[in-house]
Protein backbone atom coordinates (compact mmCIF):
# COMPACT_ATOMS: atom_id res chain seq x y z
CA UNK A 1 0.00 0.00 0.00
CA UNK A 2 1.80 3.12 -1.14
CA UNK A 3 0.88 6.54 0.14
CA UNK A 4 0.67 9.63 -2.06
CA UNK A 5 3.47 11.27 -0.11
CA UNK A 6 5.96 9.67 2.23
CA UNK A 7 8.84 11.64 3.66
CA UNK A 8 11.56 9.80 5.50
CA UNK A 9 14.37 11.26 7.63
CA UNK A 10 14.56 14.32 5.43
CA UNK A 11 17.47 16.68 6.11
CA UNK A 12 18.27 19.94 4.37
CA UNK A 13 21.27 22.06 5.30
CA UNK A 14 21.96 25.53 3.98
CA UNK A 15 25.60 25.83 5.02
CA UNK A 16 25.51 25.61 8.79
CA UNK A 17 21.75 26.15 9.01
CA UNK A 18 19.61 23.05 9.35
CA UNK A 19 16.38 24.00 7.60
CA UNK A 20 14.89 20.50 7.65
CA UNK A 21 15.93 18.31 10.55
CA UNK A 22 15.35 14.58 10.24
CA UNK A 23 11.72 15.08 9.30
CA UNK A 24 9.45 12.12 8.59
CA UNK A 25 5.75 12.08 7.86
CA UNK A 26 3.16 10.48 5.64
CA UNK A 27 0.17 11.90 3.82
CA UNK A 28 -2.46 9.29 3.04
CA UNK A 29 -4.73 9.07 0.03
CA UNK A 30 -7.40 11.77 0.16
CA UNK A 31 -6.03 13.13 3.41
CA UNK A 32 -5.60 16.82 4.09
CA UNK A 33 -2.63 17.60 6.30
CA UNK A 34 -1.71 20.94 7.85
CA UNK A 35 1.96 21.88 8.16
CA UNK A 36 2.47 24.61 10.74
CA UNK A 37 5.35 26.29 12.48
CA UNK A 38 6.68 29.74 13.33
CA UNK A 39 8.32 31.99 10.72
CA UNK A 40 11.46 30.41 9.37
CA UNK A 41 10.53 26.97 10.73
CA UNK A 42 11.26 25.42 7.35
CA UNK A 43 7.79 24.84 5.91
CA UNK A 44 8.46 26.32 2.49
CA UNK A 45 11.78 24.48 2.36
CA UNK A 46 9.90 21.18 2.76
CA UNK A 47 7.72 22.12 -0.22
CA UNK A 48 10.75 23.09 -2.27
CA UNK A 49 12.31 19.67 -1.64
CA UNK A 50 9.13 17.80 -2.50
CA UNK A 51 9.01 19.68 -5.80
CA UNK A 52 12.72 19.26 -6.51
CA UNK A 53 13.43 22.98 -6.45
CA UNK A 54 15.93 22.26 -3.68
CA UNK A 55 17.71 18.92 -3.40
CA UNK A 56 17.60 17.40 0.07
CA UNK A 57 20.89 16.86 1.87
CA UNK A 58 19.75 13.36 2.90
CA UNK A 59 16.61 11.34 3.47
CA UNK A 60 14.00 10.33 0.95
CA UNK A 61 10.77 11.57 -0.59
CA UNK A 62 8.37 9.03 -2.06
CA UNK A 63 5.44 9.81 -4.29
CA UNK A 64 2.99 6.94 -4.58
CA UNK A 65 5.80 4.69 -3.45
CA UNK A 66 8.30 5.94 -6.00
CA UNK A 67 11.51 7.55 -4.75
CA UNK A 68 11.66 10.89 -6.55
CA UNK A 69 15.05 11.97 -5.26
CA UNK A 70 16.56 12.20 -8.75
CA UNK A 71 13.50 13.47 -10.63
CA UNK A 72 13.28 16.96 -12.10
CA UNK A 73 10.43 19.30 -11.15
CA UNK A 74 8.44 18.63 -14.37
CA UNK A 75 8.86 14.88 -13.83
CA UNK A 76 7.51 15.17 -10.30
CA UNK A 77 4.56 17.18 -11.56
CA UNK A 78 3.80 14.46 -14.07
CA UNK A 79 3.76 11.98 -11.19
CA UNK A 80 0.97 14.03 -9.65
CA UNK A 81 2.35 16.55 -7.16
CA UNK A 82 2.18 20.31 -7.58
CA UNK A 83 2.44 23.40 -5.41
CA UNK A 84 1.37 27.00 -5.08
CA UNK A 85 3.62 29.77 -3.84
CA UNK A 86 3.49 32.01 -0.80
CA UNK A 87 3.86 34.95 -3.18
CA UNK A 88 1.82 34.15 -6.30
CA UNK A 89 3.90 33.82 -9.48
CA UNK A 90 1.57 34.39 -12.41
CA UNK A 91 2.59 35.11 -16.02
CA UNK A 92 2.15 38.86 -15.88
CA UNK A 93 1.26 39.56 -19.51
CA UNK A 94 -1.09 36.65 -19.99
CA UNK A 95 -4.79 36.46 -19.36
CA UNK A 96 -6.34 34.22 -16.71
CA UNK A 97 -7.09 31.61 -19.36
CA UNK A 98 -3.59 31.72 -20.84
CA UNK A 99 -2.09 31.30 -17.37
CA UNK A 100 -4.17 28.17 -16.89
CA UNK A 101 -3.22 27.04 -20.40
CA UNK A 102 0.45 26.83 -19.45
CA UNK A 103 -0.50 24.40 -16.68
CA UNK A 104 -2.53 22.32 -19.14
CA UNK A 105 0.15 21.99 -21.81
CA UNK A 106 1.71 18.65 -22.63
CA UNK A 107 5.44 18.56 -21.87
CA UNK A 108 6.26 17.62 -25.44
CA UNK A 109 7.29 20.15 -28.05
CA UNK A 110 5.66 18.41 -30.97
CA UNK A 111 2.34 18.09 -29.17
CA UNK A 112 2.55 21.71 -28.07
CA UNK A 113 2.75 22.67 -31.73
CA UNK A 114 0.12 20.25 -32.94
CA UNK A 115 -2.52 20.37 -30.25
CA UNK A 116 -4.97 23.20 -29.98
CA UNK A 117 -5.48 24.66 -26.52
CA UNK A 118 -8.31 22.95 -24.68
CA UNK A 119 -10.42 26.05 -24.34
CA UNK A 120 -13.46 24.47 -22.67
CA UNK A 121 -11.27 22.77 -20.07
CA UNK A 122 -9.50 26.06 -19.30
CA UNK A 123 -12.80 27.86 -18.84
CA UNK A 124 -14.14 25.03 -16.71
CA UNK A 125 -11.09 25.16 -14.44
CA UNK A 126 -11.27 28.93 -14.13
CA UNK A 127 -14.94 28.87 -13.22
CA UNK A 128 -14.46 25.96 -10.82
CA UNK A 129 -12.03 27.97 -8.68
CA UNK A 130 -14.52 30.83 -8.56
CA UNK A 131 -13.59 33.17 -11.42
CA UNK A 132 -16.43 35.02 -13.09
CA UNK A 133 -16.77 34.76 -16.87
CA UNK A 134 -15.85 38.44 -17.05
CA UNK A 135 -12.49 37.72 -15.33
CA UNK A 136 -11.20 35.26 -17.92
CA UNK A 137 -9.60 37.88 -20.15
CA UNK A 138 -8.03 39.86 -17.33
CA UNK A 139 -4.30 39.96 -16.72
CA UNK A 140 -2.78 39.37 -13.25
CA UNK A 141 -2.25 43.11 -12.78
CA UNK A 142 -6.02 43.55 -12.73
CA UNK A 143 -6.63 40.83 -10.16
CA UNK A 144 -6.99 40.95 -6.38
CA UNK A 145 -4.78 38.85 -4.10
CA UNK A 146 -7.64 36.41 -3.68
CA UNK A 147 -7.96 36.04 -7.44
CA UNK A 148 -4.21 35.54 -7.80
CA UNK A 149 -4.34 32.69 -5.29
CA UNK A 150 -7.26 31.17 -7.18
CA UNK A 151 -5.27 31.49 -10.39
CA UNK A 152 -2.33 29.63 -8.82
CA UNK A 153 -4.68 26.88 -7.71
CA UNK A 154 -6.29 26.64 -11.14
CA UNK A 155 -2.92 26.44 -12.91
CA UNK A 156 -1.79 23.82 -10.40
CA UNK A 157 -4.97 21.80 -10.96
CA UNK A 158 -4.48 22.12 -14.71
CA UNK A 159 -1.30 20.06 -14.47
CA UNK A 160 -3.56 17.15 -13.48
CA UNK A 161 -2.19 17.01 -9.96
CA UNK A 162 -3.52 14.63 -7.33
CA UNK A 163 -1.41 15.92 -4.43
CA UNK A 164 -1.60 19.66 -3.90
CA UNK A 165 0.82 21.60 -1.75
CA UNK A 166 -0.58 24.98 -0.72
CA UNK A 167 1.84 27.51 0.74
CA UNK A 168 0.14 30.21 2.85
CA UNK A 169 -3.03 30.20 0.76
CA UNK A 170 -4.78 32.58 3.13
CA UNK A 171 -2.06 35.21 3.46
CA UNK A 172 -3.11 38.69 2.41
CA UNK A 173 -6.74 37.80 1.82
CA UNK A 174 -9.95 39.44 3.00
CA UNK A 175 -12.35 37.49 5.22
CA UNK A 176 -14.63 36.89 2.25
CA UNK A 177 -11.76 35.64 0.10
CA UNK A 178 -10.60 33.30 2.87
CA UNK A 179 -14.10 31.81 3.06
CA UNK A 180 -14.15 31.35 -0.71
CA UNK A 181 -10.78 29.59 -0.88
CA UNK A 182 -11.69 27.45 2.13
CA UNK A 183 -14.88 26.25 0.51
CA UNK A 184 -12.95 25.57 -2.69
CA UNK A 185 -10.54 23.37 -0.74
CA UNK A 186 -13.47 21.58 0.93
CA UNK A 187 -15.00 20.91 -2.47
CA UNK A 188 -11.73 19.53 -3.80
CA UNK A 189 -11.33 17.29 -0.74
CA UNK A 190 -14.74 15.82 -1.51
CA UNK A 191 -13.53 15.21 -5.06
CA UNK A 192 -10.61 13.19 -3.71
CA UNK A 193 -7.66 15.61 -3.81
CA UNK A 194 -4.85 15.03 -1.32
CA UNK A 195 -3.57 18.18 0.41
CA UNK A 196 -0.60 19.42 2.35
CA UNK A 197 -1.43 22.93 3.55
CA UNK A 198 0.87 25.49 5.13
CA UNK A 199 -0.97 28.27 6.91
CA UNK A 200 -0.43 30.78 9.67
CA UNK A 201 -4.17 31.32 9.83
CA UNK A 202 -5.00 28.48 12.20
CA UNK A 203 -8.66 29.37 12.43
CA UNK A 204 -9.07 29.00 8.68
CA UNK A 205 -6.94 25.86 8.67
CA UNK A 206 -8.79 23.97 11.42
CA UNK A 207 -11.85 22.80 9.47
CA UNK A 208 -9.75 21.90 6.42
CA UNK A 209 -7.36 19.33 7.86
CA UNK A 210 -7.51 15.73 9.05
CA UNK A 211 -4.22 16.05 10.85
CA UNK A 212 -1.58 18.62 11.64
CA UNK A 213 2.22 18.43 11.77
CA UNK A 214 3.98 21.15 13.71
CA UNK A 215 7.64 21.85 13.04
CA UNK A 216 10.19 24.16 14.56
CA UNK A 217 13.79 24.64 13.41
CA UNK A 218 13.01 22.11 10.70
CA UNK A 219 12.18 19.32 13.16
CA UNK A 220 8.81 17.84 13.97
CA UNK A 221 7.58 18.83 17.43
CA UNK A 222 4.05 17.46 17.27
CA UNK A 223 1.70 15.50 15.08
CA UNK A 224 -1.97 14.62 15.56
CA UNK A 225 -5.43 16.06 15.21
CA UNK A 226 -5.75 19.81 15.18
CA UNK A 227 -6.84 19.83 18.84
CA UNK A 228 -4.05 17.51 19.95
CA UNK A 229 -1.38 19.62 18.31
CA UNK A 230 -2.81 22.83 19.72
CA UNK A 231 -2.65 21.37 23.23
CA UNK A 232 0.91 20.17 22.86
CA UNK A 233 3.21 21.97 25.28
CA UNK A 234 6.08 22.39 22.79
CA UNK A 235 3.75 23.85 20.20
CA UNK A 236 2.27 26.24 22.72
CA UNK A 237 5.63 27.55 23.83
CA UNK A 238 7.41 27.72 20.46
CA UNK A 239 4.62 28.73 18.20
CA UNK A 240 1.49 29.96 19.87
CA UNK A 241 3.45 31.70 22.60
CA UNK A 242 5.46 33.57 20.01
CA UNK A 243 2.44 34.48 17.94
Amino acid at each position, binding site marked *: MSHPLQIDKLVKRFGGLVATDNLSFTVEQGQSVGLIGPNGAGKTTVFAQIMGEHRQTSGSIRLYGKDIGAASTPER*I*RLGVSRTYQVP*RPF*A*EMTVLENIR*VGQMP*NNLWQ*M*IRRKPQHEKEVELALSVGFLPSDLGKTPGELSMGDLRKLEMA*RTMATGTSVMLLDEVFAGLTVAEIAQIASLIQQMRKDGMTFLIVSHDLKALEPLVDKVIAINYGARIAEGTFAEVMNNADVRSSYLGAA
Partner: protein
Amino acid sequence: MGLRWYHFALWAAFIAIMVAIPEFVSKGTLRIIIFANFLAIFAISWDVLSGRTGYISFGHPFLIGIGAYTSAILTKRFDVPIEWAIPAAVVMTMIGGIIVFLPALRIKGSYFALVTLAFMELTYQLVQVIRPDLTGGTRGMSGVQTLTRGALNGYYLSASLMVTIALSMWLLMRTQLGTALSAIGMNEESVRGSGLSTTKLKLFAFLTSAFVAGLGGAFYVHYLGSIAPRALFDINFLFTIIVAALIGGASTIIGPVIGAFFLTFLLEYLRPYLPGAERYFIYGLIALLLYMYEPKGIIELLRKGWHRLFSRHSVETPS
Protein backbone atom coordinates in the same frame (compact mmCIF):
# COMPACT_ATOMS: atom_id res chain seq x y z
CA MET B 1 -4.47 30.64 -31.88
CA GLY B 2 -7.43 30.34 -34.13
CA LEU B 3 -6.88 32.12 -37.41
CA ARG B 4 -9.43 34.82 -38.17
CA TRP B 5 -10.46 36.40 -41.44
CA TYR B 6 -8.38 39.52 -40.80
CA HIS B 7 -5.24 37.41 -40.37
CA PHE B 8 -5.67 36.08 -43.90
CA ALA B 9 -6.53 39.57 -45.11
CA LEU B 10 -3.47 41.17 -43.51
CA TRP B 11 -1.09 38.49 -44.76
CA ALA B 12 -2.57 38.69 -48.25
CA ALA B 13 -2.18 42.47 -48.19
CA PHE B 14 1.40 42.17 -46.93
CA ILE B 15 2.35 39.70 -49.67
CA ALA B 16 0.57 41.78 -52.32
CA ILE B 17 2.50 44.88 -51.25
CA MET B 18 5.81 43.00 -51.31
CA VAL B 19 5.04 41.71 -54.82
CA ALA B 20 3.94 45.14 -56.08
CA ILE B 21 6.79 47.18 -54.60
CA PRO B 22 9.16 46.90 -57.61
CA GLU B 23 6.49 48.49 -59.83
CA PHE B 24 6.51 51.64 -57.81
CA VAL B 25 10.03 52.29 -56.59
CA SER B 26 13.39 53.04 -58.12
CA LYS B 27 16.29 50.58 -58.35
CA GLY B 28 18.05 52.48 -55.59
CA THR B 29 15.11 52.19 -53.26
CA LEU B 30 14.82 48.53 -54.15
CA ARG B 31 18.39 47.97 -52.98
CA ILE B 32 17.54 49.64 -49.70
CA ILE B 33 14.53 47.38 -49.29
CA ILE B 34 16.73 44.36 -49.90
CA PHE B 35 18.71 45.37 -46.83
CA ALA B 36 15.49 45.89 -44.92
CA ASN B 37 14.44 42.35 -45.84
CA PHE B 38 17.66 40.86 -44.49
CA LEU B 39 17.51 43.02 -41.38
CA ALA B 40 13.93 41.82 -40.88
CA ILE B 41 15.11 38.19 -41.05
CA PHE B 42 17.81 38.86 -38.45
CA ALA B 43 15.35 40.73 -36.23
CA ILE B 44 12.85 37.86 -36.45
CA SER B 45 15.63 35.48 -35.47
CA TRP B 46 16.43 37.64 -32.45
CA ASP B 47 12.76 37.97 -31.57
CA VAL B 48 12.06 34.23 -31.59
CA LEU B 49 14.72 33.82 -28.94
CA SER B 50 15.11 37.03 -26.97
CA GLY B 51 11.72 38.67 -27.55
CA ARG B 52 10.01 35.54 -26.29
CA THR B 53 12.15 33.92 -23.64
CA GLY B 54 13.78 37.08 -22.30
CA TYR B 55 17.26 35.60 -22.84
CA ILE B 56 18.73 38.69 -24.44
CA SER B 57 21.22 37.73 -27.10
CA PHE B 58 24.01 40.19 -27.80
CA GLY B 59 25.61 37.54 -29.94
CA HIS B 60 23.43 37.41 -33.00
CA PRO B 61 26.20 38.58 -35.33
CA PHE B 62 28.05 35.48 -34.09
CA LEU B 63 25.26 33.25 -35.41
CA ILE B 64 24.75 35.21 -38.62
CA GLY B 65 28.53 35.15 -39.09
CA ILE B 66 28.68 31.36 -38.84
CA GLY B 67 26.04 31.10 -41.55
CA ALA B 68 27.72 33.62 -43.80
CA TYR B 69 31.29 32.33 -43.38
CA THR B 70 30.38 28.67 -43.70
CA SER B 71 28.56 29.14 -46.97
CA ALA B 72 31.16 31.55 -48.34
CA ILE B 73 34.10 29.29 -47.47
CA LEU B 74 32.43 26.15 -48.78
CA THR B 75 31.52 27.67 -52.11
CA LYS B 76 34.62 29.76 -52.67
CA ARG B 77 37.40 27.62 -51.21
CA PHE B 78 36.00 24.13 -51.70
CA ASP B 79 33.78 24.60 -54.74
CA VAL B 80 30.82 23.13 -52.96
CA PRO B 81 27.63 23.84 -54.91
CA ILE B 82 25.61 26.61 -53.36
CA GLU B 83 22.56 24.38 -52.84
CA TRP B 84 24.67 22.21 -50.53
CA ALA B 85 26.60 25.03 -48.96
CA ILE B 86 23.54 26.86 -47.65
CA PRO B 87 22.00 23.89 -45.81
CA ALA B 88 25.45 23.08 -44.41
CA ALA B 89 25.74 26.68 -43.24
CA VAL B 90 22.37 26.45 -41.52
CA VAL B 91 23.40 23.26 -39.72
CA MET B 92 26.67 24.87 -38.62
CA THR B 93 24.76 27.88 -37.31
CA MET B 94 22.45 25.60 -35.33
CA ILE B 95 25.52 24.01 -33.75
CA GLY B 96 26.57 27.57 -32.94
CA GLY B 97 23.11 28.04 -31.45
CA ILE B 98 23.76 25.13 -29.09
CA ILE B 99 27.01 26.78 -28.01
CA VAL B 100 25.14 29.99 -27.17
CA PHE B 101 22.48 27.91 -25.43
CA LEU B 102 24.89 26.26 -22.99
CA PRO B 103 25.41 29.33 -20.76
CA ALA B 104 21.61 29.80 -20.72
CA LEU B 105 21.40 26.61 -18.67
CA ARG B 106 23.03 28.43 -15.78
CA ILE B 107 22.87 32.19 -16.20
CA LYS B 108 20.22 34.75 -16.97
CA GLY B 109 19.68 38.43 -17.51
CA SER B 110 22.55 40.79 -18.15
CA TYR B 111 25.17 38.11 -17.40
CA PHE B 112 23.81 36.01 -20.21
CA ALA B 113 23.76 39.00 -22.55
CA LEU B 114 27.40 39.75 -21.75
CA VAL B 115 28.50 36.18 -22.36
CA THR B 116 26.86 36.24 -25.79
CA LEU B 117 28.57 39.55 -26.52
CA ALA B 118 31.85 37.83 -25.72
CA PHE B 119 31.02 35.16 -28.31
CA MET B 120 30.74 37.85 -30.96
CA GLU B 121 34.01 39.54 -29.97
CA LEU B 122 35.82 36.22 -29.72
CA THR B 123 34.71 35.16 -33.19
CA TYR B 124 35.90 38.47 -34.61
CA GLN B 125 39.35 37.83 -33.14
CA LEU B 126 39.41 34.18 -34.17
CA VAL B 127 38.43 34.87 -37.75
CA GLN B 128 41.52 37.04 -38.03
CA VAL B 129 44.04 34.61 -36.61
CA ILE B 130 42.77 31.13 -37.40
CA ARG B 131 43.23 30.04 -40.99
CA PRO B 132 43.16 33.47 -42.63
CA ASP B 133 43.73 31.58 -45.87
CA LEU B 134 40.15 30.35 -45.49
CA THR B 135 38.42 33.29 -43.84
CA GLY B 136 40.35 36.05 -45.54
CA GLY B 137 41.45 37.42 -42.17
CA THR B 138 40.76 41.06 -41.40
CA ARG B 139 39.96 41.86 -45.01
CA GLY B 140 37.25 39.28 -45.25
CA MET B 141 36.24 37.71 -48.51
CA SER B 142 35.11 39.00 -51.86
CA GLY B 143 34.11 37.35 -55.09
CA VAL B 144 31.76 35.01 -53.29
CA GLN B 145 29.30 33.43 -55.68
CA THR B 146 26.03 35.36 -55.89
CA LEU B 147 22.61 33.86 -56.36
CA THR B 148 21.06 36.67 -58.31
CA ARG B 149 22.00 39.46 -60.62
CA GLY B 150 20.48 42.90 -60.49
CA ALA B 151 18.33 44.66 -57.96
CA LEU B 152 15.02 43.19 -59.09
CA ASN B 153 16.05 39.54 -58.70
CA GLY B 154 17.82 40.34 -55.46
CA TYR B 155 14.66 41.94 -54.24
CA TYR B 156 12.43 39.01 -55.11
CA LEU B 157 14.79 36.50 -53.55
CA SER B 158 15.20 38.43 -50.31
CA ALA B 159 11.52 39.28 -50.11
CA SER B 160 10.34 35.72 -50.62
CA LEU B 161 12.85 34.47 -48.07
CA MET B 162 11.74 37.10 -45.56
CA VAL B 163 8.02 36.54 -46.10
CA THR B 164 8.42 32.75 -45.89
CA ILE B 165 10.37 33.01 -42.65
CA ALA B 166 8.00 35.60 -41.19
CA LEU B 167 4.91 33.57 -42.01
CA SER B 168 6.27 30.27 -40.74
CA MET B 169 7.60 31.82 -37.52
CA TRP B 170 4.33 33.65 -37.00
CA LEU B 171 2.36 30.43 -37.37
CA LEU B 172 4.77 28.56 -35.10
CA MET B 173 4.59 31.22 -32.42
CA ARG B 174 0.80 31.16 -32.44
CA THR B 175 0.80 27.57 -31.24
CA GLN B 176 0.95 26.58 -27.58
CA LEU B 177 4.70 26.36 -28.03
CA GLY B 178 4.85 30.12 -28.63
CA THR B 179 2.78 30.67 -25.50
CA ALA B 180 5.17 28.49 -23.50
CA LEU B 181 8.21 30.42 -24.80
CA SER B 182 6.58 33.72 -23.83
CA ALA B 183 5.83 32.27 -20.41
CA ILE B 184 9.56 31.63 -19.91
CA GLY B 185 10.17 35.32 -20.48
CA MET B 186 7.62 36.21 -17.82
CA ASN B 187 8.48 33.67 -15.13
CA GLU B 188 10.75 30.73 -15.83
CA GLU B 189 10.21 29.09 -12.41
CA SER B 190 6.46 29.07 -12.92
CA VAL B 191 6.88 27.38 -16.28
CA ARG B 192 8.84 24.62 -14.60
CA GLY B 193 6.25 24.64 -11.82
CA SER B 194 3.60 24.05 -14.47
CA GLY B 195 5.29 20.80 -15.41
CA LEU B 196 7.13 21.95 -18.53
CA SER B 197 10.82 21.33 -19.17
CA THR B 198 12.28 24.79 -19.65
CA THR B 199 15.55 23.29 -20.86
CA LYS B 200 13.79 21.66 -23.79
CA LEU B 201 11.85 24.83 -24.57
CA LYS B 202 14.92 27.04 -24.42
CA LEU B 203 16.94 24.66 -26.58
CA PHE B 204 14.17 24.79 -29.15
CA ALA B 205 14.14 28.60 -29.09
CA PHE B 206 17.93 28.77 -29.56
CA LEU B 207 17.87 26.25 -32.40
CA THR B 208 15.01 27.99 -34.18
CA SER B 209 16.66 31.36 -33.79
CA ALA B 210 19.95 29.95 -35.09
CA PHE B 211 18.18 28.28 -38.00
CA VAL B 212 16.75 31.62 -39.11
CA ALA B 213 20.02 33.48 -38.47
CA GLY B 214 21.98 30.87 -40.44
CA LEU B 215 19.59 30.95 -43.35
CA GLY B 216 19.62 34.75 -43.37
CA GLY B 217 23.40 34.92 -43.02
CA ALA B 218 24.03 32.46 -45.84
CA PHE B 219 21.64 34.11 -48.28
CA TYR B 220 22.99 37.52 -47.29
CA VAL B 221 26.56 36.59 -48.17
CA HIS B 222 25.41 35.19 -51.52
CA TYR B 223 23.56 38.40 -52.17
CA LEU B 224 26.46 40.68 -51.25
CA GLY B 225 29.14 38.47 -52.77
CA SER B 226 31.49 39.48 -49.96
CA ILE B 227 32.05 39.47 -46.22
CA ALA B 228 33.57 42.28 -44.19
CA PRO B 229 34.21 41.00 -40.65
CA ARG B 230 34.45 44.49 -39.23
CA ALA B 231 30.93 45.32 -40.41
CA LEU B 232 29.53 41.92 -39.46
CA PHE B 233 30.87 41.56 -35.93
CA ASP B 234 29.99 45.11 -35.17
CA ILE B 235 28.17 46.58 -32.23
CA ASN B 236 26.17 48.92 -34.50
CA PHE B 237 24.96 45.97 -36.55
CA LEU B 238 24.03 44.15 -33.35
CA PHE B 239 22.09 47.09 -31.98
CA THR B 240 20.33 47.69 -35.27
CA ILE B 241 18.97 44.13 -35.09
CA ILE B 242 17.86 44.49 -31.48
CA VAL B 243 16.40 47.96 -31.93
CA ALA B 244 14.49 46.83 -35.03
CA ALA B 245 12.88 44.05 -32.98
CA LEU B 246 12.17 46.27 -29.98
CA ILE B 247 10.74 49.36 -31.64
CA GLY B 248 8.78 47.23 -34.09
CA GLY B 249 7.28 45.25 -31.25
CA ALA B 250 9.10 42.36 -29.61
CA SER B 251 7.52 38.92 -29.41
CA THR B 252 5.24 39.55 -32.39
CA ILE B 253 7.29 38.49 -35.48
CA ILE B 254 5.59 41.16 -37.61
CA GLY B 255 6.78 43.93 -35.30
CA PRO B 256 10.46 43.19 -36.07
CA VAL B 257 9.68 43.30 -39.80
CA ILE B 258 8.06 46.71 -39.42
CA GLY B 259 10.93 47.82 -37.18
CA ALA B 260 13.50 46.68 -39.74
CA PHE B 261 11.86 48.66 -42.54
CA PHE B 262 11.42 51.70 -40.31
CA LEU B 263 15.07 51.67 -39.19
CA THR B 264 16.51 51.02 -42.63
CA PHE B 265 14.64 53.94 -44.14
CA LEU B 266 15.34 56.17 -41.15
CA LEU B 267 19.07 55.52 -41.53
CA GLU B 268 18.84 56.04 -45.27
CA TYR B 269 17.01 59.36 -45.01
CA LEU B 270 19.38 60.64 -42.36
CA ARG B 271 22.39 59.74 -44.51
CA PRO B 272 22.53 62.92 -46.65
CA TYR B 273 22.33 65.15 -43.59
CA LEU B 274 24.46 63.19 -41.16
CA PRO B 275 27.10 61.19 -42.94
CA GLY B 276 29.06 60.07 -39.90
CA ALA B 277 28.48 58.45 -36.57
CA GLU B 278 26.02 61.20 -35.58
CA ARG B 279 23.49 59.31 -37.63
CA TYR B 280 23.58 56.46 -35.15
CA PHE B 281 23.17 58.94 -32.33
CA ILE B 282 20.05 60.47 -33.88
CA TYR B 283 18.61 57.11 -34.75
CA GLY B 284 19.32 55.87 -31.25
CA LEU B 285 17.52 58.89 -29.87
CA ILE B 286 14.48 58.42 -32.09
CA ALA B 287 14.35 54.74 -31.24
CA LEU B 288 14.61 55.51 -27.53
CA LEU B 289 11.82 58.11 -27.63
CA LEU B 290 9.59 55.79 -29.61
CA TYR B 291 10.33 52.96 -27.24
CA MET B 292 9.58 55.12 -24.20
CA TYR B 293 6.34 56.34 -25.75
CA GLU B 294 5.18 52.84 -26.65
CA PRO B 295 7.26 49.97 -25.22
CA LYS B 296 5.19 47.48 -27.17
CA GLY B 297 6.44 49.02 -30.37
CA ILE B 298 5.16 50.42 -33.65
CA ILE B 299 2.89 47.43 -34.14
CA GLU B 300 0.99 48.43 -31.00
CA LEU B 301 0.62 52.00 -32.32
CA LEU B 302 -0.81 50.59 -35.55
CA ARG B 303 -3.14 48.32 -33.63
CA LYS B 304 -4.40 51.23 -31.53
CA GLY B 305 -4.86 53.37 -34.63
CA TRP B 306 -6.83 50.59 -36.28
CA HIS B 307 -9.05 50.27 -33.24
CA ARG B 308 -9.65 53.98 -33.09
CA LEU B 309 -10.69 53.93 -36.75
CA PHE B 310 -12.95 50.91 -36.46
CA SER B 311 -13.83 51.02 -32.78
CA ARG B 312 -17.55 50.96 -33.49
CA HIS B 313 -17.27 47.53 -35.05
CA SER B 314 -14.56 45.88 -33.08
CA VAL B 315 -15.63 44.45 -29.79
CA GLU B 316 -12.92 41.86 -29.43
CA THR B 317 -9.24 42.56 -29.60
CA PRO B 318 -7.18 40.62 -32.07
CA SER B 319 -4.82 38.26 -30.36
